[in-house]
């Protein structure tokens, strides 16, 4: 079985995001970029399934500009067999990303597609679900445990009410939550090995994906700040303050 893994590059999660003063975007020049943390988890899960003998090949997919190659090499160093780079000059929205994945699925025929539940830049949390809809296949979102057997995935999902277990016939789309696994660290010899692994390059325009259905972002703003409150000296003062507010 082949597994396709979405591998997006985003602003590193440790970077403090600054909105440009003119409201035209956030500052990304010179800012550290890394793999979307949920995508690292997706790749790790795919690699573990390959190590268990469930999967035979793991393919990482990235959509982005020409310099995305270095990022895809990281995915290969982590252990993916090969990479597909869909070259797009601008960031794509989730619906376009889902349409791109569908095109790749038609060619690659994977048994499983694993994506992060959301990317930590746009926080959309849509691509996996949209792909499953367009592909007319099951979706198992927010996965914290995945078991593959007898042509189906049994997935534990982290939902507001607790942990939900569902069964999904393969092929299917799984999106990862934080506690699914802890991604491995890349070792130096793996970086060397990754240099000889193949990266297929496809121009976004050549895939023939529909381009309608987009949102237009007109303004970026910094969030409203909470002001610093007061320090109380002891339990009695705290209770008095909360009682005065009618909260206790």
């Amino acid at each position, binding site marked *: 079985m082949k597994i396709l893994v979405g591998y997006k590059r985003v602003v590193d999660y440790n970077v403090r995001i600054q909105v440009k003063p003119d409201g035209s975007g956030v500052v990304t020049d010179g800012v550290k970029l890394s793999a979307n943390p949920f995508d690292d988890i997706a790749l790790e899960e795919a690699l573990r399934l390959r190590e268990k003998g469930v999967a035979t090949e793991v393919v990482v997919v990235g959509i982005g500009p020409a310099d995305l190659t270095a990022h895809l090499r990281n995915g290969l160093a982590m252990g993916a067999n090969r990479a597909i780079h869909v070259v797009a000059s601008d960031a794509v*929205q989730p619906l376009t990303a889902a349409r791109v994945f569908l095109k790749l699925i038609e060619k690659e025929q994977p048994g499983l597609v694993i994506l992060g539940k959301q990317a*930590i830049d746009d926080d959309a949390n849509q691509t996996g*679900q949209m792909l499953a809809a367009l592909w007319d296949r099951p979706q198992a979102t927010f996965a914290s445990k995945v078991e593959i057997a007898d042509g189906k995935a049994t997935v534990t999902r982290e939902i507001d009410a607790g942990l939900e277990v569902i069964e999904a016939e393969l092929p299917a789309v799984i999106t990862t939550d934080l506690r699914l696994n802890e991604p491995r660290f890349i070792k130096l010899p793996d970086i060397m090995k990754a240099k000889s692994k193949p990266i297929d390059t496809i121009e976004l325009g050549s895939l023939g994906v529909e381009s309608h259905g987009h949102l237009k972002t007109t303004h970026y703003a910094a969030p409203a700040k909470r002001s610093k409150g007061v320090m109380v000296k002891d339990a009695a003062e705290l209770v008095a303050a909360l009682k005065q507010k009618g909260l206790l």
Partner: protein
Amino acid sequence: MSKILVIAEHLGGKLNSSTARAVSAATAVKGEAIDVLVLADSVDAIASEAAKIDGVSRVLTVARPENAHPLAAILAPQIAKAAAGYSHVFVPSTTFGKDVAPRVAALLGVAQVSDVMSVEAAYTFKRPIYAGNAIITVEADATHTVVATIRSASWPAALTGVNSAPIEAITVDAVLPTHTRFVELKQGSSDRPDLQSASKVVSGGRGVGSKENFDIIFKFADRIGAAVGASRAAVDAGYVPSDLQVGQTGKIIAPELYMAIGISGAIQHLTGIKDAGIIVAINKDGEAPIFEIADFGLVGDLFKIIPELEQVLA
């Protein structure tokens, strides 16, 4: 004129308060009608709750055995069909809505607006990106249905009680897949208020120190009738299950009172609580970042302070 379809979220035959919050957002669109769609195996109790929400024009129900559990693959084709004639489909931005809404949007061939914080105009919305560190204004295509998830913490629940909207059973002609099946739901059984909708929340962090020590948090929460939450650090350390996690990757909540106890205040945690009414921080480290956003801060040992609080309250 806009017509908005709000998808009801429910569990165990009860309407989730996230639905009334989504109705609030629908009201802000200032359209001509707000209909609530209830998809369930047994719809009556849920529908009659939904009919009482202020601003609701009609409650539409689809009762099918397949709708016993909220599986996105089953619900989305029905919602997509029912959406015909509506300008907007609003779904709560809970794990339920986040799962099903994009599937609906893709079936309709439209983009989705995630986590709507404010409605600026019928097709213009504000939503957070980068974990709430930037707020963007987005415009959706006015010639297509807008599918949006509504960020519960940004909207008060619409009032209930006065309204009595008509309830109509509808049939939707949708082929439902059999490739996805519900197996079980493991709920942290509890008589405590639900974390997502509670008016008071007491959360513990790494400072609590152990699973056993977390009892002090549970007891204090019970004492003041609060739900219990936790920081990611406390969840990762195994003190409490993950469904109690508050923060960017956990639950985003907006209680009237939030008490952070032994929580230092990592950015990812603060993202989950910044819409709370009053934030109280209790931490032995006076330099902890949680104090930067707390309305009331108290520096000290939580194991000394909590018993003192209980004593003062007694």
